[in-house]
């Protein structure tokens, strides 16, 4: 007998104009479990969280919380659904105009209409749970350090004892000790409250500590889901590359395509002055360097033109691309019309 999953996303798509951030997300989080979603920067993890909360509306797909559809509901209904949630934001997002205790007691005073004295006591108790003394409660958020702000943010997120807690990159920007403090707090509070947790992070150490289950997002899709123990042995090359923090792998090709071609060590074989000029041309400010480099020297040395010299270099795809574009820039012709043939 399967219990209704706490959060269920089916084929969720989110587009911003022509740009598709989430392509087809399928994710299930069971009650009482802690799910961590990992993925590179800009892959849509925060967008996914905001779609679940209703801060963004998905273009297509269904999101169910406790079996109830939450994508196209009225504002009043959404306010009721949101009472089940608590969220710790990446920058803590504390309200600057209120004191720390007022921040922590915010959900109680606004959402449950608790009177201020009682709410203050509950706030101090929650601050103590995250390891902050009660005099911190009377400070302003701008007077706190990053780690303290995150802890206050956590206290604020759990103050009204929510059933579901979201963590948006909880350890980003913290020193290793404070990051572990936050990880431990997350584990403890989630267990204490029996809450369901969904976190997004790229800190693998944090993910391993707080997760029961993990999922990986890549290019708007969930490409792998499994338990936290399986993440190292799953065999999925994208997951492997991410988890081990390797620069080479299937995902890295995407990053390399975006960079301008770099001079490779193989240029060393060519005449020294020419290689220096070529290296200067292939740097990102190629155009500026090109005029300086080609003005005097190259034109005077007409023994072998630059085209022939370049073409004698070993061919790999980056070098060929680099050589043809440098050549065309120097000669001022369009790439299509310039036929490069071996001498």
């Amino acid at each position, binding site marked *: 007998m399967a219990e209704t999953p706490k959060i269920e996303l089916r084929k969720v798509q989110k587009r911003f104009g022509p740009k598709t951030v989430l392509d087809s997300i399928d994710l299930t989080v069971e009650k009482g479990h802690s799910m961590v979603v990992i993925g590179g920067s800009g892959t849509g993890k925060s967008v996914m969280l905001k779609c679940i909360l209703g801060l963004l509306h998905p273009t297509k797909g269904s999101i169910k919380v406790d079996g109830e559809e939450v994508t196209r509901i009225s504002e009043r209904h959404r306010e009721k659904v*949101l009472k089940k949630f608590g969220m710790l934001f990446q*920058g803590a*997002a504390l309200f*600057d105009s209120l004191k720390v205790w007022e921040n922590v007691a*915010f959900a109680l005073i*606004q959402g449950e209409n608790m009177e201020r004295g009682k709410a203050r006591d509950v706030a101090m108790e929650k601050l103590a749970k995250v390891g902050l003394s009660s005099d911190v409660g009377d400070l302003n958020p701008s007077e706190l350090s990053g780690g303290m702000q995150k802890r206050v943010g956590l206290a604020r997120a759990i103050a009204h004892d929510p059933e579901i807690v979201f963590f948006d990159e909880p350890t980003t920007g913290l020193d290793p000790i404070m990051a572990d403090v936050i990880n431990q707090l997350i584990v403890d509070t989630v267990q204490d409250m029996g809450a369901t947790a969904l976190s997004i992070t790229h800190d693998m150490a944090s993910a391993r500590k707080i997760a029961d289950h993990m999922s990986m997002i890549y290019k708007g899709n969930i490409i792998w889901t499994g338990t936290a123990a399986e993440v190292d042995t799953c065999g999925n090359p994208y997951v492997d590359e991410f988890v081990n923090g390797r620069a080479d792998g299937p995902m890295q090709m995407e990053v390399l395509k975006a960079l301008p071609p770099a001079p490779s060590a193989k240029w060393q074989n060519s005449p020294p002055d020419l290689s220096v000029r070529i290296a200067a041309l292939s740097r990102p400010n190629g155009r500026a360097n090109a005029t300086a480099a080609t003005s005097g020297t190259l034109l005077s040395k007409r023994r072998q033109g630059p085209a022939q010299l370049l073409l004698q270099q070993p061919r790999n795809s980056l070098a060929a691309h680099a050589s043809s574009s440098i050549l065309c820039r120097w000669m001022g012709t369009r790439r299509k019309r310039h036929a490069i043939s071996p001498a």
Partner: protein
Amino acid sequence: MNIFALVGRAVLTFLAEVGALSRFTMRAVRSCFAPPVYLRLIGQQMLRIGYFSLPVVGLTAFFTGGVLALQIYIGGSRFNAEGFVANIVAIGITRELGPVIAGLMVAGRVSAAIAAEIGTMRVTEQIDALVTLSTNPFKYLVAPRLIAAVISLPLLVLIADIIGIFGGFIVGTQSLGFNPLVYISNTVDFIEPSDVTSGLIKSSVFGFIIALMGCYSGYRSMGGAQGVGRATTNAVVASSILILAANYVMTSIFFTS
């Protein structure tokens, strides 16, 4: 570049902006009437919008009244109208200059401050945090500012009217040699309640515009510090232009029959 595409894009962008602003306005006005009403926040905003704008408005009104008196005396000498200084200062300040110039000064101060505050909240995710803490950001942020501005501006303009007429009085009696008692009795005889009330209604509308444009620009700011800076500038420019446009519309409604 296709000229039709350019013009078309500009028109469509403009219409989209108008549409977005109208939807925002509807939501904002609806949120003013639905409970919960945060009286404490309204009080705080009235202090910031109304009370702290008094020095600016007072000084502006004083100098405006003085200049008006001077110009009417000097300019009016071309057609023997020097004696009308008191009357024209009274009518000019209460009908037009009081509301409009006070409105513009407060727009510069207040809509910039509101846009900066709400814009910063937007880029630091505090508005999203409000939503996750079961609070409607319109009811918590926008409604108190709208209500406070609509109530504070008429009070400010009332004070501006008094100080403006006083400025005219000082210039009239000290530099232009009018008899103080004659000046005051001229002012009182020729001013009518409708002059003052039309000015106060105008200032209510100006207050609404100031708070609305501040909140709208701030709410839609994006892109970090530069976005907040842009939002602040847009708020001041937009509210100033809308104040002047609304002034024309209201003047034509009130004074042409």
